[in-house]
């Protein structure tokens, strides 16, 4: 099982100090062998991070192995081309460790289809050369008209389009366009928060990795992941293509509750292993408060090896 970290940036503190503390913890986690670091997009507090890919690009050059995921990403604050570009740039600086996780449509007050189109678009943008895209919420390039097929399309093999290098094209707008740079990986991991049923079903059928956030009660969270697995299996999706995520608050030697996993190190190992059997996930993300509580080192020494084994 993989183990990652995310941070609760829901507080009012000095942003320079707080962001530096989180960066220090990412660097420490990288050295300790944690598998992923998740920074959520936010605009609500003095320490929220509105541009997580930028933040993580700073972490990329200070770490070697840890996966870096821009989490809770919205689709309304940036052009989809920029979302594809920012993940590609993060992937290049980290040499293949970038990922992105989107909020569901309901959680960002946009249509589910809007998010789905952006997810589809960024995957094509990373992997295709010249292409165009026509959806209800996105046309790329912007001159793409109704004659284009829905979704992504590339020039036909027998296309009469003559190849003109872009530096010779002048002010003419091309019909198909390449988004650059390409990521270092062929396809960075794309996740979506499955906090409502239609998103969960769509993600399961399309092979998009699900995330259940820490604010969902544990029992319900693993049930959602189990339901995702059943739908994906029925749709014939391979388990190898996705990375289901369970995010939890955790406390070592403390009491758990409906949202928090608590207990001794041995008890936590047993709880997580049991949840894994029910929810069929293999990537646990520990949501942490921004504090130097000493638990990271204990977790790395006592729990992580027995989960990763």
């Amino acid at each position, binding site marked *: 099982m993989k183990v990652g970290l995310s941070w609760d940036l829901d507080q009012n503190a000095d*942003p*320079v100090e707080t*962001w530096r503390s989180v*960066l220090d913890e990412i660097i420490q986690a990288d050295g300790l062998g944690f598998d992923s670091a998740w920074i959520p997009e936010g*605009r*609500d*507090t*003095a*320490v*929220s*991070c*509105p*541009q997580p*890919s*930028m*933040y993580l*690009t*700073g*972490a*990329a*050059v*200070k770490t070697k192995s840890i996966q870096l995921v821009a989490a809770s990403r919205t689709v309304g*604050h*940036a*052009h989809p*081309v*920029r979302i594809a*570009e*920012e993940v590609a*740039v*993060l992937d*290049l*600086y980290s*040499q*293949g460790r970038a990922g992105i996780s989107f909020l569901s449509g309901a959680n960002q007050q946009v249509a589910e289809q809007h998010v789905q189109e952006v997810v589809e678009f960024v995957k094509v943008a990373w992997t295709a050369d010249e292409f165009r895209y026509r959806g209800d919420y996105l046309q*790329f*390039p*912007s*001159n793409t008209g109704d004659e284009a097929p829905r979704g992504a399309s590339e020039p036909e093999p027998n296309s009469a389009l003559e190849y003109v*290098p*872009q*530096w*010779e*094209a*002048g*002010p*003419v*707008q*091309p019909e198909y*366009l*390449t*988004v*650059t*740079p*390409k990521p*270092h990986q062929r396809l960075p991991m794309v996740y979506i928060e499955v906090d409502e049923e239609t998103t969960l079903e769509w993600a399961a059928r399309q092979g998009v990795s699900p995330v259940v956030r820490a604010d969902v009660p544990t029992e319900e969270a693993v049930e959602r992941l189990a339901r995702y697995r059943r739908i994906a299996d029925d749709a014939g999706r391979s388990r190898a293509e996705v990375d289901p995520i369970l995010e939890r608050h955790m406390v070592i030697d403390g009491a758990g509750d409906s949202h928090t996993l608590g207990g001794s190190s041995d008890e936590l190992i047993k709880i997580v292993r049991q949840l894994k059997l029910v929810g069929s996930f293999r990537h646990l993300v520990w949501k942490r408060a921004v504090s130097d509580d000493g638990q990271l080192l204990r977790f790395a020494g006592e729990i992580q090896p027995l989960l990763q084994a």
Partner: protein
Amino acid sequence: MEFWTGAGTVSKNRKMPTAIAAGYSAAADAAITAEKLGFDGVSAAEHHFMYDAFTPQPLQSLAAMAAVTERVKLLTGAMLLPLYDPLEAAEQSITLDILSNGRVCMGLGMGYRPLEFNTFGTAKRTRGARLVEGMEVLRLATSQETFSYSGKHYQYENVSMLPRPVQSPIEMYFCGGATPFGARRAGQAGLPYWLANSPTDHAEEMIKEYRRIGLEAGHPAEQLKVAVFKDLCIADTMSEAFELRDFMMNTFYEEHILGYGYLVDADGKNLYNPPKEHPIYQRFYSSMACVTPEMAIEEVKRYERMGIDAIYMGNRDLVAQLILPEFK
């Protein structure tokens, strides 16, 4: 006078190929080197859909540099503001300002490549006005807890942005080319002006014009800051310097000058496919002066005498070796 330099263009240019991911790493390393060499700022630029994998997100590249440097200013030179919703640009600049503890300086340009405007859905003819309006929105967003703005292209009411930047407002420059049109626009709006590469006599004229218009418009002199891009081809002999200039300019001519409409005429209109004899190209060509080390020092001293605030020079290692010791 501050000395600024580039952090290396991340690109796989068809005449100077490099590995792309290694190039991105090298950009962060270049910032470390520039800081050690004594430069005051390092910059990253912006282009989209480039065949050579040019970085499209300058502030994101600077975030990598922020993590590995302590002192140096992090400059966009230039970021193409008309291609952004100004609030998105403000968020990005605030994010970097926090990450770098207040070291961001935004050089903001109009852009010129048609497919960038077309794809992001911004009418290119509005780029000048959008740049000026967008900079005012950036100033408000990074200096006011809550602000409203009503312009021709952008309108916002009671916007509050969190988190807040370290600087208030974030430092920025108007990168408006080297035409009288651009100089006047910057002066009229009272925006700090980062002048494009141009022959030194011409630059001096533009700086005077900018300051004259700015003061006439009622802006205080200390607000009318000036930076210049100044690329010099420095070699021990003039013939070596001319050879270096031809090598550097040919690729740029074949791509940005011919196909992307980089140059503009006196009215701000883009020129496509200008012949090499075109007077505006000739001025651009000669803006990259060919000099010996002694001449380079004299050239920079001329800018110092003009009372400018910063000079950007791309030739990092030679500048550090030959020029910085004369001024620092």
